[in-house]
């Protein structure tokens, strides 16, 4: 069972599709991350927080089954309309699948399944939305930031170990939201963790009348810390988990995470967005 809000979105969700997406561009984005843009034809309506399953690497001239499984990646943004839509994914080269993805050249094709999962939902009226992104988790937040910026006050806190690992800083800065950066080595923004910044932001926001809501995506430890800070000041916190997945649409039961109430939830089909309080954090890898 997903959280109430995600379920709400669920009812209006589009059905996912599988497309042979064409690589339009695939280039470094900063020093460590990469940005890939796919032509996906008639792409279903999607919500920020939803993701796609990308085949590891471009389609070869003959089928190859090593590596085998598709890789989950957040939809960073989309553009175009009708039969001519594009989606953008920001990614970090981690292992074999993303290394092969990095060598997919414009004009090559990659199999994409999506949009999958439930999105973040919309913040309650006039609430101050505080978005906290760590590492590749940042990618899940961009379209959310853009959408909520039109509705009310927004603070975006982006963090990384060092400056070159920051994802999409420029994209966020163009949104005209309150953008704060924290790096562990101080090479950019505040020296420290995103949670150091979050603590201050929440303190200030508590003075506001309508209240605040936190959206976090990043390493498990970071999301957990964010949720604890938010809980302390009774601010709701929604997190988007990044777990290993085989299918991405509820068929394999591989992505299960333990819930606070006992039992498991499937990150791919019931998440990846959860109310932080729903989760049994100690059991999340």
């Amino acid at each position, binding site marked *: 069972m997903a959280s109430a809000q995600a379920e709400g979105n669920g009812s209006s969700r589009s059905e996912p599709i599988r497309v042979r997406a064409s690589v339009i561009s695939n280039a470094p984005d900063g020093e460590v991350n990469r940005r890939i843009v796919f032509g996906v034809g008639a792409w279903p309506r999607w919500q920020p927080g939803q993701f796609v399953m990308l085949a590891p690497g471009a389609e070869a001239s003959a089928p190859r089954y090593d590596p*085998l499984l598709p890789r989950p990646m957040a939809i960073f943004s989309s553009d175009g309309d009708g039969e001519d839509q594009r989606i953008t994914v920001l990614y970090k080269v981690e292992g074999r699948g993303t290394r092969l993805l990095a060598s997919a050249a414009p004009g090559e094709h990659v199999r994409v399944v999506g949009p999958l999962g439930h999105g973040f939902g919309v913040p309650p009226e006039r609430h101050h939305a505080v978005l906290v992104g760590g590492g590749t988790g940042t990618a899940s937040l961009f379209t959310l930031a853009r959408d909520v910026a039109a509705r009310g006050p927004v603070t975006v806190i982006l963090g990384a170990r060092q400056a070159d690992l920051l994802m999409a800083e420029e994209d966020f800065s163009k949104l005209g939201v309150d953008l704060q950066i924290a790096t562990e080595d101080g090479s950019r923004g505040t020296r420290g963790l995103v949670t150091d910044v979050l603590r201050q932001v929440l303190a200030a926001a508590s003075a506001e009348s309508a209240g605040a809501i936190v959206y976090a995506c990043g390493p498990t430890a970071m999301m957990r810390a964010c949720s604890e800070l938010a809980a302390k000041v009774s601010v709701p916190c929604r997190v988007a988990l990044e777990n290993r997945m085989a*299918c991405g649409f509820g068929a*394999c*039961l591989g992505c299960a995470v333990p819930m606070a109430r006992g039992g498991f939830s499937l990150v791919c089909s019931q998440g990846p967005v959860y109310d932080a309080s729903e989760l049994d954090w100690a*059991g*999340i890898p």
Partner: protein
Amino acid sequence: MGVGEAKLVDTTTELAGMTLRNPVLTASGTFGYGTEFKAFMDLRKIGGFVAKSLTLEPRFGNPPPRIGEVRAGMLNAISLENVGVDAFIADKLPEIPEGVPVVASLFGTEIAAYAEVAKRLGGVPKVAGLEVNASCPHVKSGGIEFGQDPRLLAELVRTVRAVTDAPLLVKLSPNVTSIAEMARVCEGEGADGISLINAVQAMDVDVKTRRPVLKNVLGGFSGPAILPIALRMVWQACQAVKISVCGIGGIMEPADAVKFLLCGASAVQVGTANYVNPMASAEVAAGIEQYARDHGFARTADLTGALDLS
């Protein structure tokens, strides 16, 4: 074949007393309860599907990580997770469109529990047959699997057979010295057919963290890598018994399925491929028909056992 119209191929398949539209099912645990695939394909394009294995009560599975990728395959340690037989009948079956045969897979840690699940599935509409999952390499049920011990297996099949008239498949574990022996046990106890193979017990380690990839340490290995093992076992089982055999293991493409048919299987199940390509099973079904047409077979059933050993 002559010029002009492509000949029509009859894809009707008899498996363990069930009549199926074509010889392609999807494998238990890889197709959820069917509903997960409705967005991607018309379920009537395949012969039917085998639902996730059911226990008497709803069960939770193992803690994460439950899956990992290996070369040309994956590992899983999902364990017993399922909604339970009653919720399956009440909530899941009604979601399945008419005309899609469902094979209910059943599982338990005791023989009596298997039998009770089989009873509850008796006479339920849409349930075309039963598959007894005699293997589950990742369940910590205190040791050996039912499918690894001929006496345990015999007792299991006998007991379930006694409580149901439904077409009864027994799904065998590959983690045995002699698959032929296990196949003969099933035939002897009145099973209508056997399905093989289940996932192969395996393990992987993450050298960065020096930890097992699966929290459960051991898991089941599936995907294209295991096909040659599955094909060998299907071949050996087909030599050993006369009841129908359903081939499973690593099927990604139509040609893979054809191999199982040629070795003697009456039908096949597509498993891990469903994750990689949610339309895989329908594509395999269409491709088998195409293969039969291209090679001058009027019926896909004629592919069964058509291996040329000359």
